C-alpha cells in the first residue's frame, strides 16, 4: 500500500461520509415535511466549529477525542486497504473506548451518563460485529477483506441471518433512534448532548469528523457482504449500502429512543437468533 493511497483514503473518506450525513439530514427533513438544510451543511458545521473558540473543563478530556480519531482513521485504513477485518474491529473498539474515556474524563454528569450509555451500546453491538467477522471467515475462509471481496459468490448468500443482525446493530454505530442513547444527532436529548456535552470548537469538530469515518466503516461492513470478483457486483454493493442507510434513516425517524434495558436485550437476542443460528447452520454444511 503506497503513501498516495493512504492519503487518498484519509482525505476522501470523511468527504464521502460528510456528504452522506448531508443527504441524511435532507432526507430526514423531508420525512418530517420540512425542506431541510443544504447538502453541504455538515461541512459548514465543521468549518464553523474549527473557527470557533475551543473551551474546556479540564486539560485532559480533549486528548482522548484526538486519540479516538487517530484509531478510527487507522481502522478505516485497514478496512479500505483490504486488511484484516477482525483487527480493524479491534482497532475500532480501541477508538470507541478512548471516546468513552474522554466522556468520563470531563467529569460532567451529562458526559458521564453519556459515556456509560456509550459503553452499554458497545457491549450491545460488539457480539454481533464479532460474529459478522467470524461469519465472513466461515464463508470465505479468510479474515482479509481483499480475499472476501474477491470471492466467487457474495457472502450474503451464506450469511443472510448475520447480515440482518448486522443491519440491526448498525443502528447503534450510526447513532440512530431507537438506539441513540449516548448522543443523538437530533436537537434535544434527555441528557443534553450526552457524551459530547462538554466539548466545543475544534474538539467537537473532531468528533463530527470521527463520526463521518465511522459511517464509512459501518457501510464498508455492509459492502463486503455483496462484493465479489465480478466488477458488476461492486455496483450492487454500493446500492446495498445506500439501501441500508436509507432504511436506517427511516427507522431513525419512525421510532422513539428505547430504554437501555431494551437496547441491550434486543441487540443480544437478535444476535443470538440471527447470528448464532446462521453460523450453526453454516458450520454443519
Amino acid at each position, binding site marked *: 500500500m503506497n503513501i498516495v493511497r493512504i492519503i487518498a483514503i484519509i482525505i476522501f473518506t470523511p468527504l464521502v461520509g460528510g456528504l452522506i450525513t448531508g443527504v441524511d439530514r435532507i432526507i430526514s*427533513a423531508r420525512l418530517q*415535511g*420540512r425542506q431541510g438544510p443544504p447538502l453541504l451543511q455538515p461541512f*459548514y458545521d465543521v468549518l464553523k466549529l474549527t*473557527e*470557533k473558540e475551543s473551551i474546556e473543563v479540564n486539560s485532559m478530556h480533549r486528548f482522548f477525542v484526538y486519540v479516538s480519531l487517530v484509531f478510527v482513521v487507522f481502522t478505516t485504513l485497514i478496512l479500505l486497504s483490504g486488511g484484516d477485518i477482525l483487527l480493524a474491529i479491534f482497532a475500532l473498539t480501541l477508538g470507541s473506548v478512548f471516546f468513552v474515556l474522554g466522556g468520563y474524563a470531563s467529569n460532567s454528569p451529562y458526559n458521564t451518563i453519556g459515556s456509560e450509555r456509550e459503553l452499554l451500546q458497545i457491549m450491545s453491538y460488539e457480539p454481533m460485529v464479532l460474529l459478522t467477522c467470524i461469519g465472513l471467515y466461515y464463508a470465505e475462509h479468510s479474515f482479509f477483506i481483499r480475499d472476501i471481496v474477491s470471492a466467487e459468490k457474495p457472502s450474503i448468500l451464506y450469511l443472510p441471518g448475520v447480515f440482518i443482525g448486522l443491519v440491526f446493530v448498525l443502528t447503534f454505530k450510526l447513532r440512530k433512534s431507537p438506539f441513540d442513547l449516548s448522543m443523538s444527532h437530533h*436537537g434535544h*436529548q434527555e441528557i443534553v*448532548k450526552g457524551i459530547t456535552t462538554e466539548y466545543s470548537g475544534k474538539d467537537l469538530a473532531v468528533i463530527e469528523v470521527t463520526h463521518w469515518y465511522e459511517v464509512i466503516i459501518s457501510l464498508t461492513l455492509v459492502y463486503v457482504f455483496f462484493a465479489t470478483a465480478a466488477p458488476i457486483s461492486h455496483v450492487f454493493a454500493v446500492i446495498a449500502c445506500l439501501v441500508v442507510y436509507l432504511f436506517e434513516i427511516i427507522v431513525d425517524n419512525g421510532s422513539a429512543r428505547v430504554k437501555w434495558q431494551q437496547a441491550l436485550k434486543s441487540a443480544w437476542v437478535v444476535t443470538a437468533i440471527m447470528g448464532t443460528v446462521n453460523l450453526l447452520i453454516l458450520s454443519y454444511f
Partner: protein
Amino acid sequence: MDGIKKSPWILHYDGTSCNGCDIEVLACLTPLYDVERFGMINTGNPKHADVFLITGSVNEQNIPVVKQLYEQMPDPKVVIAVGICATSGGIFAECYNVAGGVDKVIPVDVYVPGCAARPESIIDGVVKGLEILGEKKKKAGKKQ
C-alpha cells in the same frame, strides 16, 4: 468563507417568560418555518451554541444562571433577546424580583420585540445576529 454564518446553533433559555415566546421559538423549528434551512439547530447546550436566545425577563433567581450559561459559550457569540419582556422587562419590569431586560446582566446584540414575538421576526432577529456574529469573528481575527 464564513462558516459561522451558515451554521448558527442556538441555545434557548427561558427566563421569567409566560411561555408565549417559547412556543413561538419552537414554532420556528416546525415544517412551516423550518429554520434548519439556514443550518440552525436548537442544541440546548451552551458549549455547542453560537446564539444565546433568551425569552422573558431576568429575575434575581436566574441572574447567575444566565451569566454562567453566557460564560460557558465559546466565542464568538451573540445574545438575542426575544419578546418585549427580554428586551426591557415588559409588564413585569416593576415586579419586586425582576431585574429588567436581559441587557441588565449580559450584553445583548439583537432585540426582537413583540408579545409574543412572531416566528418571522425571531428568524429575522437571528439572521441579523448572524451579521453581528460575522463582524465579531472578524474583529477577533484582527486582534490576534
